[in-house]
């Protein structure tokens, strides 16, 4: 192989390798872009609420709708206590979501939020949400899960209605099996003690 050809081939090989890496780099880049712009309806992580910082804007009244759905083969019952609420921007509000595991197995679920319209996503702040963690539900267990949020007053003026949708996924098979085994053991212990309660409304500390 002549020197000039070897040089060309090396350069082209490096380009190919670089583009392979670029393909993988698209993942963090995509997440970064969605975080910055709020595209895709992705909401941020836990929001620290400081009452002194946020002044409710009493002049505006927004409608916030809640949608719940279960993904694919997820059999849990999942609903929100209210279909929607009216809030002022900057006002802290709590809404309860109820989930029930109707099967006779311990299962793990994960809720994924999405906000529509997309440009409202970056102004939708949650101080507390069940979507920040996984839910482990015993057989037949019902759980009430509070979600506390506020809509930033800097929300664009032309947004009057926001829809928050939760998709609930069954992640029993992908979750750390140690967690699942511990939960199952707890469930068996509980049933051997002949616990009377079928459903145990559990309110997560809030």
């Amino acid at each position, binding site marked *: *192989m*002549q020197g*000039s*050809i070897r040089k*060309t*081939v090396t350069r*082209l*090989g490096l*380009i*190919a*390798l670089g*583009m*392979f890496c*670029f*393909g*993988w780099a*698209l*993942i963090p880049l*995509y997440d970064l872009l*969605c975080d910055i*712009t709020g*595209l*895709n*309806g992705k909401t941020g992580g836990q929001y620290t609420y400081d009452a002194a910082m946020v002044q409710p804007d009493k002049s505006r009244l927004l409608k916030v709708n809640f949608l719940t759905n279960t*993904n*694919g083969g997820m059999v849990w019952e999942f609903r929100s206590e209210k279909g929607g609420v009216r809030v002022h921007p900057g006002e802290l509000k709590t809404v309860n979501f109820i989930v029930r595991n109707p099967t006779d197995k311990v299962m793990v679920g*994960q809720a*994924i939020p999405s906000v*529509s319209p*997309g*440009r409202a996503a970056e102004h939708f702040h949650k101080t507390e949400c069940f979507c920040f963690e996984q839910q482990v539900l015993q057989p037949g267990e019902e759980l009430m899960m509070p979600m506390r949020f506020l809509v930033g007053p800097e929300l664009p003026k032309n947004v009057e209605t926001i829809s928050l949708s939760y*998709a609930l*996924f*069954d*992640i029993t098979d*992908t979750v750390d099996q140690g967690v699942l085994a511990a939960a199952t053991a707890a469930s068996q212990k509980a049933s051997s003690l002949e616990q009377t309660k079928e459903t145990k409304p559990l309110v997560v500390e809030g």
Partner: protein
Amino acid sequence: MSEVVVGHDHHDDDDHHHGPAKGIARWLFTTNHKDIGTLYLWFSFAMFLIGGCMALVIRTELFEPGLQFVDPEFFNQMTTNHGLIMVFGAIMPAFVGLANWLIPMQLGAPDMALPRMNNLSFWILPFAFGLMLSTLFMEGGGPNFGWTFYAPLSTTYAPDSVTFFIFAVHMMGASSIMGSINIIATILNMRAPGMTFMKMPLFCWTWLITAYLLIAVMPVLAGAVTMMLFDIHFGTSFFSAAGGGDPVMFQHIFWFFGHPEVYIMILPAFGIVSAIIPTFARKPLFGYDSMVYATASIAFLSFIVWAHHMFTVGMPLAGQLFFMYSTMFIAVPTGVKVFNWVATMWQGSMTFETPMLFAIAFVVLFTMGGFSGLMLAITPADYQYHDTYFVVAHFHYVLVPGALFSIIAAVYFWLPKWCGNMYDESLGKLHFWLSFVGVNVTFFPQHFSGLAGMPRRIPDYALQFADFNMISSMGAFLFGFSQLLFMYIVIKAIRSGKPATGQVWEGAHGLEWTIPSPAPYHTFTTPPVVSDSNAHN
């Protein structure tokens, strides 16, 4: 050659280099660009027939509403594999085969820059496609998620055989990348003295740019299928929302590959047509420089328009506007090309041999496909057209009478140079007219059924679409069986036929027409002199 060498061991080695080896070993171990080009072309023709049979299964099922012949699960496998095989098995290898045959001869080079890698990049392909086709016979069936293999259809809901599909895609990608490196290395380093870049035939130019596109996007596809593999087997969540991933991201990554990919399948066609039209119009190509710049512009734009395939995923207005306008902007360099081809024919003394007929049909029908593409680029209109037969009609117009017609035109045009015999001109013309009528009868009605709302990839449909589908299916059978005539014509020309002259066509210019027909096994072992008369014009 070899029977006289007994006792002359000394000369044995020399003799070996003068002609091809005998038997199967010639094809297995060959490093000759002409042999490898031939292998690529026959392989792609075999894939074309297999993919064509799948298309006919689809059209048979869609001949009438209701489910008649295949169950929906198998129908999905047919649409998926038809797409994958035609894109990766038929169109792309055919262009690589033409590149192997023509680029060294057009540049005055003795062979490709990396002959052994050339052998490897071809011989990967039969294994890749053998692996992919074998999945059709596995339990649970083959790929059934569409050629775009969107997650989670191709991850969570995929048949078990998807892993074989992933490895097959890896192998095709490796083959394409090696082929592209070879082509770029040849064009950059092996040109005959005096063959400057702006004297190169446009086929070399378009392939040079195509090869860069391939090197840029094939690794991204390899990354995407690797992520799928991880999601399926190693518990990652690149494309699964439950684990914090995003299925929409799959579409972004796929189309970042996919849009340049569709230009990979058309740029070499531009090069072929730019060689054929001047030959039969007996005029130099109009606007050579602008052709080069237009090709480069199209290649650049192909990287910034991908999201027009996914307007309906929910994108901010600014994004929709950006992708709409950038997509429409591609019509400018493409329009320059169409204008140049028409201007080349203007006042030329044209004759209409088979390659020219296919080339003219290319210009007309590809432009129609381009116009339906412009309609699809209009974001609000795309909400109606998305995933309907209008899209099917659009991309088949650019791929069948576009890319495929250019390949057929190239075969008729250069076949006399390859095998030394002329093909049967009347049969060639018959093949053209059957194909031309067949392709339009097949795909033109699909515009109407699509605008009326018939969705893609569905084995059954509402009664209102029955007439359009029946016409479409009849056209498909006409088109499909006409290609057997093509095979007959090619084989007949290889076996017998009027001997071709070196120049073959009266108006042909370029280095490949200065050597005898059939082209000797080794050409340009001493570099030719490049004069104005044997350069591109």
